[in-house]
């Protein structure tokens, strides 16, 4: 009996000063038996007739499962209002992909600290502007996090909004090990979530 095709796992993250860790994460997931799609390691299927943004969104659309890593760096590939990473996360949520999120501790801490200043009670932004600092480079990181956890809908109606806090790579890897090591379990989840 031939082995089933590998599940296509898209890993999205900003890259700046995270290059080595991203390679380590992708290698771990490849070792777990996934076909890993990631722009930094050059494994996103590219259509030459499309823009980078369109190719990345298409990958988020076509993958079997999705891993979003939310770091305190927003990303340089900004197109229009949002970064490519941000758009990929929104696409995965929109398509109801089986998804997992890792959120850096600094993002969580900055959110707690800045929420009263940067966000209105309905979740929209105030006019608060963030000055240059070494912890969080853009308030849109918090919007990205809000999109990942579906902050705009009531907690009781949210699904797939688990976001695991991590402070360093060993912690992130431990989460991935516990969640994604068993590719057979993940395949069942993917099949289950495909059903209407």
């Amino acid at each position, binding site marked *: 009996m031939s082995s089933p095709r590998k599940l296509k796992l898209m890993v999205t993250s900003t890259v700046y000063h995270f290059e080595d860790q991203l390679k*380590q994460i992708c290698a*771990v997931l490849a070792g777990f038996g996934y076909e890993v799609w990631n722009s930094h390691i050059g494994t996103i299927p590219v259509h030459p007739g499309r823009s980078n943004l369109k190719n990345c969104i298409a990958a988020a659309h076509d993958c079997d499962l999705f891993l979003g890593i939310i770091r305190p760096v927003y990303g340089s590939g900004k197109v229009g209002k949002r970064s490519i990473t941000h758009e990929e996360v929104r696409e995965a949520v929109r398509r109801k992909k089986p998804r997992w999120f890792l959120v850096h501790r600094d993002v969580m801490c900055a959110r707690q600290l800045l929420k009263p200043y940067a966000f209105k009670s309905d979740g929209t932004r105030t006019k608060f502007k963030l000055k240059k600092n070494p912890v969080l480079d853009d308030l849109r990181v918090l919007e990205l996090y809000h999109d990942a956890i579906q902050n705009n809908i009531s907690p009781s109606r949210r699904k797939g909004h688990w976001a695991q806090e991590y402070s*360093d790579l*060993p912690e992130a890897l431990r989460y991935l090990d516990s969640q994604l090591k068993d590719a057979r379990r993940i395949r069942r989840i993917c099949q289950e979530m495909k059903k209407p």
Partner: protein
Amino acid sequence: MKLEDFQEVIAKGESKNVEFKTGGVPPEVIAKSVCAFLNSGGGRILIGVGDKGQVVGVKDAGVTTRRLQQRLPHLISPRALWTVEHMQVDKRDIVIVEVPEGMDKPYVAGGAIYLRSGKDAVPASRDKISALIQKGTGTSQRWERQMAIGADRVDLDEKLIRETVRMAVKSKRWQGSSNNTDAFLHGLGLIANGGVTNAALILFGKRPSQLLPQARIRLLVMPKGKTGNRYALDKSFDSCLLRVADEISATLSLHAGGVESRFSAEHWQRDDRQIYPMTALREGVMNALVHRDYSSSGSITISILPDSLQISNPGGLPEGLKPADLKRDHPSVPRNPDIAHVCFLRGFIEKVGRGTQRIVEDCREARLHDPKWQSSSLETILTFFTPASGFAQTLVEDLNDRQQKILAAIQEHKPLSANDVAKLLGGEVTDRTVRNDLQTLVNGQWLVRRGRGRSTLYVRPKKELK
């Protein structure tokens, strides 16, 4: 690696820690082996050696060495410390890649994680990867990677960082822009999450001891020994590691035992030399700075005593390493790999795991007794001895003909008494001459006395003739 160590390694064959490669193997293949060693306890790759240990050599060893030095950092993630050297064996060139165990596993080459399986590098299975992750997360973050509380980037000496990056780029040990100090610090894990690590502060801090008192180094000159009632000098060094190494060297060259003068019957000209070889002292200080346990609040102390010089540092030797191992070929187990890596990039470390052997070689060359390492779980002490300490060791060629004859006889036969020696020398020498010759050999550690009075015998200690 010394020739005798190389021959011993070859004789033992390939193993979990040793891999042979013939020449012409692309860096991508070597990278997989390096990756496997980093993930599996360290080891070494001997390029130019066949599977069965036959020395076939490498063409253009210099080119191969440079190519590996330049390519391997691009092929393996995250960055780690390893060294590439080449040596000649039977007029054939061999390239050796020395890889200490990595501290930031899993290491990746070509998109995959490799491990050692017997004598091969193999892609890690799902369960092995999981085990690697669980093992890594079971330990707390090492001290050098923790954020330095209260320190910012402005507390680092930018000029020193720039100088270090420039030197690393120039020596081709670092591939990147000379001007991009941020990428350098990030790439080595010295800054993260908007802060600086303890390692960054130790290496580049403007005044590291203000935040980390254990970074201070104390140098004591005690002319009457440890029981004396005064210090001739009690000096503290507060600079960062990359500056303090030079400052200590300069002070040691002024205070470490001065100069010894010798005359000999053959050479009437006075032979002046520094008692302690400065290269060995510097290496000893660097070892203490790089390998000490910084999580301990104790400081490194250098004590200059009448008959010895001691360098003591907090922290014992790494698990599995004994003081005696330091004199021979031994695996490198850096306690602070980030600090060691920057010292390597700066040129303070040439080859991993060779520093202690070089210390011994330098002392022997300076005709000093071998230095001594003592280690407990709390501290490691390295002691250098002066010739006046009673440990003076003459070279065999400095012994007279009678003394060499005695040595040869005792080496070949059973232990000899003074009477046996007198007979050996043919009865033309006085008892006093025999006693003097034997005393010289005992002082020089060529012989050991056993027994007392008339039953005294002279035997060879367990060491080789030089």
